């Protein structure tokens, strides 16, 4: 033997899946939604995403190198994902300096001040987004409307999101029938031809990405399926009782951040529970809070808040919803 022999404890073989590969799988899964946003919002979507990604990577580099003086981990893909997801939660016409502030909050406050990858309690991209939403509510709810305006960012006409239109309409005593007449059809919502944040446009694209993540086993079905089913059931109950005052479950699922949240934000590995039981509780919590905010709260949309609130419960969920220990319940059938 030319080199010294290695002595280490078993196992002596390891799976070739690394955290880096998991992260880049998420990036791949986000591509369809990004392409749709380019089609819908044009150059604006590209600028917002590029600024968010670059500033997230840059802040991570600067903070780790000069403030924390630790190893720089910008290559692991996590800051890249934070950047993309932050951009996906912003309107496409947001001023660039605001995007940079959001990135600083996401990376600096929500991620690195907790200790970096794996130690953050809250989803960094969502913290950045919510910080911007409460700081700059006007700019954060100016939604350039779809397709026809995709060339000229400066003259972009802004309009409300479908959820915003519903909330406003209902507040002024309008009926769902009248409101729905002005809404994009469910098919348009599914394809992504309505107003909203960059990444939440197309249900179809998000679903494709989600299926890719499931296929690659980056995520399991527990969080997205539980969350969407619970949302559908809850909004469905209200809709059946009073279809004139409540939107249909399909509108709720296809509009706003439901699909983006279910597949990409709530499933964030670091900030979601580590057992399957826990994931189901977590997803139900998100769905309930989202629906309560959408139907009865001041904001038209509540997915971001719901996920952040449930993020805070994750340590508790991990403590109380443990996997069943083998042999702890003796239910053997001796025949």
């Amino acid at each position, binding site marked *: *033997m*030319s*080199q010294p*022999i*290695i*002595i*280490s*404890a*078993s*196992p*002596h*073989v*390891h*799976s070739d*899946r*690394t*955290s880096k*590969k*998991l992260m880049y799988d998420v990036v791949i899964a986000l591509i369809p939604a990004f392409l749709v946003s380019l089609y819908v919002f044009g150059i604006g979507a590209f600028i917002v995403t590029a600024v968010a990604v670059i500033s997230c990577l840059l802040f991570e580099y600067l903070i780790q190198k000069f403030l924390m003086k630790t190893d720089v981990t910008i290559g*692991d893909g*996590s800051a890249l994902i934070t950047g993309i997801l932050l951009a996906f939660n912003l309107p496409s016409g947001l001023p660039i300096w605001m995007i940079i502030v959001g990135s600083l909050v996401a990376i600096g406050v929500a991620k690195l001040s907790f200790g*970096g*990858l*794996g*130690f953050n309690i809250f989803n960094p991209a969502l913290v950045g987004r919510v910080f911007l939403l409460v700081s700059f509510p006007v700019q954060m709810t100016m939604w350039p409307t779809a397709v026809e305006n995709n060339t000229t960012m400066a003259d972009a006409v802004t309009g409300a999101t479908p959820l915003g239109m519903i909330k406003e309409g209902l507040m002024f005593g309008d009926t769902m029938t009248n409101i729905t007449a002005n809404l994009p059809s469910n098919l348009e919502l599914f394809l992504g031809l309505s107003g909203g944040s960059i990444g939440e446009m197309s249900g179809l694209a998000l679903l494709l990405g989600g299926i890719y993540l499931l296929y690659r086993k980056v995520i*399991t079905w527990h969080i997205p399926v539980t969350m969407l089913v619970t949302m559908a059931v809850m909004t469905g109950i209200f809709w059946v009782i009073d279809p004139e005052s409540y939107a249909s479950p399909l509108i709720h699922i296809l509009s706003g951040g439901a699909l983006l949240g279910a597949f990409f934000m709530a499933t964030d*590995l*670091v*900030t*979601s*529970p*580590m*057992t*399957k039981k826990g994931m189901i509780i977590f997803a139900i919590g998100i769905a309930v809070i989202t629906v309560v905010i959408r139907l009865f709260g001041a904001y038209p949309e509540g997915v971001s808040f719901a996920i952040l609130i449930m993020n805070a419960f994750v340590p508790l969920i991990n403590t109380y919803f*443990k*996997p*069943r*220990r*083998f*042999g*702890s*319940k*003796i*239910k*053997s*059938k*001796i*025949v």
Partner: protein
Amino acid sequence: MLKTFPKGGIHPPENKITAEKGIKRMAVPKVVNVPIAQHIGIPAEIVVDRKDKVVKGQIIAKSGGFVSSNIHSPVAGTVTKLDLIIDSSGYKKQCIVIRTDAKDPSNFEEVENPLKTDIELEPKEILQRITDCGIVGLGGATFPSQVKLNVREGTTLDYLIINGVECEPYLTADHRLMLEKAEEIVVGIKILMKALHLKKVVIGIENNKKDAISLFKKVIKKEDGIQVAALQVKYPQGGEKQLVRAILGREVPKNGLPLDVGVIVHNVGTIFAIYQAIQYDKPLIERVVTVTGKKLQNPSNFWVKIGTPIKDLIAEVGGLPEGTRKLVNGGPMMGKAIKNTDVPVTKGTSGILVIDEEEASRGEAKNCIRCGQCVFVCPMGLEPHLLMNLSEKGMYDKASAEDIMTCIECGSCSYVCPSHRPLLDYIRFGKNIVKKLETSKN
């Protein structure tokens, strides 16, 4: 649908490159180093001295207590010294060194015993013979077989499960033995059925050994009460608790044994050793060893005398290839890395695995990203990330409360961890300390 255990498990690349290689007989080595602690429990007590002449199969170390086992001379020869030699644990252990007598014909003429189906011994005599012949579990745990078979009056025992799973990647020793000695193994099963007054036996074989499954189905056609169960390929199905759960749906209670749910599990290799002990009074002095590795010239399966230095095996398969970085006694998931090639083959050596640079090195440990993979794959329903953390921080009471002691050390958690965290290393460390704390309390 193939049977399997429901919670956890992994499917690493199987790499069973020696599956087609028939078991060859290794030449008797010039010198054998026979350790006196080859089994779990109390080491055997040496009953020979320097310069003693020993014949093949003679007892050279006697069982040292209830959980212990006799050790026999694998060769005819002379005891040259009683020495401390590094074994697969990495520590120096007491060994009996015997120089083979080059003239004694018993060392070179191996009689292939014909199949003998009539079982003449009575149950009591069978158990005594198993004790005398030094039979231990050959699946890897090397638990003295007579202790396992010592079933107290009044205990409910209704199933014997034969473990032909061999879920470790690379290893094919049990697979080849099943193919080559199927009829003998079935006689061995009937011996245990007689000894334990058992009516029901299931042979569990994973579905990557279809030839063995169909062979056993053919052999047991006329036998009453013996079944073959084809199992889904999933590691660690060869673990007793997982196997019992997979085949019978019974869950061995926490800190319990299969016997608590009326089951005894034995490895196919053990059953063959029992067959030879009962029918031909042959003690356990040899076993099947898979010598394997991707870069080896001629990886194969061998009948090897206990005490044979591993370097003899390596020479037999064409020597160590360039770039070898690790030698493993056992399979890649649970085997032990060994220090040098002088380490002797013992009763528990199911394989020797030669690993190159690429496979040997672990990735750099990164932050835990809390993905939960370790929790999903743990077959015992534990939370490896938590146990590692608690062990690392010295919170042993908490670790004990989180059932650290029920870990079977299968290594599935370390295998899947995408951040290459040394989960099992810390869990083992924690287990050792918890064990010490618990003994000092009592």
